[in-house]
């Protein structure tokens, strides 16, 4: 009567898997019923397994219970019994053919289909993100709110918008065509990228729980990269960039949890094995003539990972990647980052020259990053007065105490050398 351990995140991942599989069978218009059925199957499992021990095949057990819950609920609720019966025959199948879903690859197929369903063009991107976190990662509304720094009401609203769209769609995920897959792939990339950045931008206390977002993004991107529908150079580059950033994550804070600049990080703490995995994906992404923003960003991350020290970083290569990034995905934040890299390569005056006469868009002008970079470059050029002015602005705009502390430390006048190279994802702030 022992209760054997389950694999990590068993409940969350089974939730995602079952929601995907059952939604394929009944159609996404029933997604809320599917979610309820799965939730209560997990509850039954929790109660039963703790007392009676694990069944032989826990996923199959869960599928059976969730399937029965769902059928019961749909039969009970709908008056149009015949129509439903038809649906049942056509799409749900019978219990007997249930186990077929456990054939290798099928599960991943269902999850992947669901990912493409979440990326329906008609769903606004902030709702797609929440929908993906709910259905594909198994997070609850309050858990999503915590991870996105959003209110529960806001997450609820975003999810509601996505669901009402799905209800109208009456889509059977199994009927997505190749055309759907290829047209939605860029959105799928974007959502996975967002899930990852939300985790990566974490700081201090929330580090551990938000790190899960990075793990989830990597999990889903890996499934995508192993499926014919997702095997494109962009997918490989995205996965490379995730691994190359994740490899450096634990080194981003000191023992007290304060954020560290790239320059201050203990490079020995970087996860070399993960860097290797990242580099392998990067090599794979180099096939074909497509060069996406993910290629550019992975290229930058790779340069940092491969540099033996901050000083020995091949800043010319980093600058080159930023220039490419600016061309593919024009954004003021890329220009700002290029200026920072140029300052390392050719000196702070050259860095400032890039930004000279450049009017930042309001979202960037109102962000601490813009003020912080200017404060730093002016400080290093000896323009004390201007530097102080920007420093005060940057500190006032700092989003978290950890960032503020870092800015105050770095932007003190009279500190020797050093540069403000914030270790961040390139377009993390570019979503306002």
């Amino acid at each position, binding site marked *: *009567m*022992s*209760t*054997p*351990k*389950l694999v990590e*995140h*068993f*409940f*969350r991942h*089974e*939730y995602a898997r079952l929601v995907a599989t059952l939604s394929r069978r009944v159609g996404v218009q029933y997604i809320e019923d599917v979610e309820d059925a799965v*939730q209560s199957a*997990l*509850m039954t499992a*929790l*109660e039963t*397994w*703790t*007392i*009676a021990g694990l069944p032989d095949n826990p996923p199959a057990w869960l599928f059976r219970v969730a399937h029965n819950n769902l059928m019961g609920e749909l039969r009970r609720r709908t008056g149009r019994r015949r129509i439903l019966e038809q649906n049942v025959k056509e799409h749900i199948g019978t219990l007997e053919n249930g186990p077929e879903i456990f054939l290798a690859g099928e599960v991943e197929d269902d999850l992947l289909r669901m990912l493409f369903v979440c990326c329906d063009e008609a769903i606004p991107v902030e709702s797609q993100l929440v929908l993906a976190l709910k259905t594909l990662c*198994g*997070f*609850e509304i*309050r*858990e999503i709110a915590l991870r996105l720094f959003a209110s529960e009401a806001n997450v609820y609203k975003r999810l509601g918008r996505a669901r009402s769209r799905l209800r109208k769609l009456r889509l059977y995920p199994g009927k997505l065509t190749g055309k759907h897959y290829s047209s939605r792939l860029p959105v799928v990339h974007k959502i996975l990228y967002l899930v990852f950045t939300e985790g990566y931008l974490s700081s201090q206390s929330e580090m551990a729980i938000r790190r899960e977002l990075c793990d989830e993004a990597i999990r889903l991107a890996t499934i995508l990269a192993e499926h014919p529908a997702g095997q494109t150079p962009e997918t490989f580059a995205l996965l490379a960039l995730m691994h190359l950033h994740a490899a450096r994550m634990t080194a981003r804070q000191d023992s007290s949890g304060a954020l560290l600049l790239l320059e201050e990080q203990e490079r020995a703490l970087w996860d070399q094995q993960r860097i290797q995995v990242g580099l392998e994906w990067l090599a794979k992404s180099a096939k074909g003539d497509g060069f996406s923003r993910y290629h550019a960003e992975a290229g930058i991350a790779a340069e940092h990972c491969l540099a033996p020290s901050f000083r020995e970083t091949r800043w010319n290569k980093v600058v080159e990647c930023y220039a490419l990034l600016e061309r593919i995905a024009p954004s003021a934040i890329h220009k700002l980052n290029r200026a920072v890299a140029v300052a390392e390569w050719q000196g702070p005056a050259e860095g400032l020259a890039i930004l000279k006469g450049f009017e930042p868009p309001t979202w960037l002008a109102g962000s601490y990053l813009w003020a912080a970079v200017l404060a730093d470059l002016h400080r290093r050029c000896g323009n004390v007065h201007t530097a102080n002015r920007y420093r005060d602005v940057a500190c006032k705009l700092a989003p978290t105490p950890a960032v503020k502390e870092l800015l105050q430390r770095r932007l003190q006048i009279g500190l020797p050398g050093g540069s403000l190279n914030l270790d961040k994802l390139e377009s993390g702030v570019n979503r306002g």
Partner: protein
Amino acid sequence: MPKQKYLCIQRSQSGKSEKPSPAQMEEMYAKFHAWKEKFQKNIVDMGGKLGSGKVVTSEGATDGPFVEAKEVVGGFMIVSAESLEEAMEVVRESPGVVMPGSSVEVREIHTP
């Protein structure tokens, strides 16, 4: 295994309780797992959840008073221990008691 057996009756508040998320369920499962390991030698019968039923009296059978009760008997189990104190300790650490609004009654089972 200690000799004396105790019947543990779990009660919880009837009505709504917020549904745990999958992540919380994982945590609950892990806690339960750890508890079961720790008190392996004390647990005689994990018992189970109690469903609905009827009350039989000399006058016949009714649907039972428990339908109206604010506190519902949700489940039972049997543990063995050297003393009531030890039995209470087993129960106190059980994840089932930690949930707000729930309690466990521990009663010694006298057998001839």
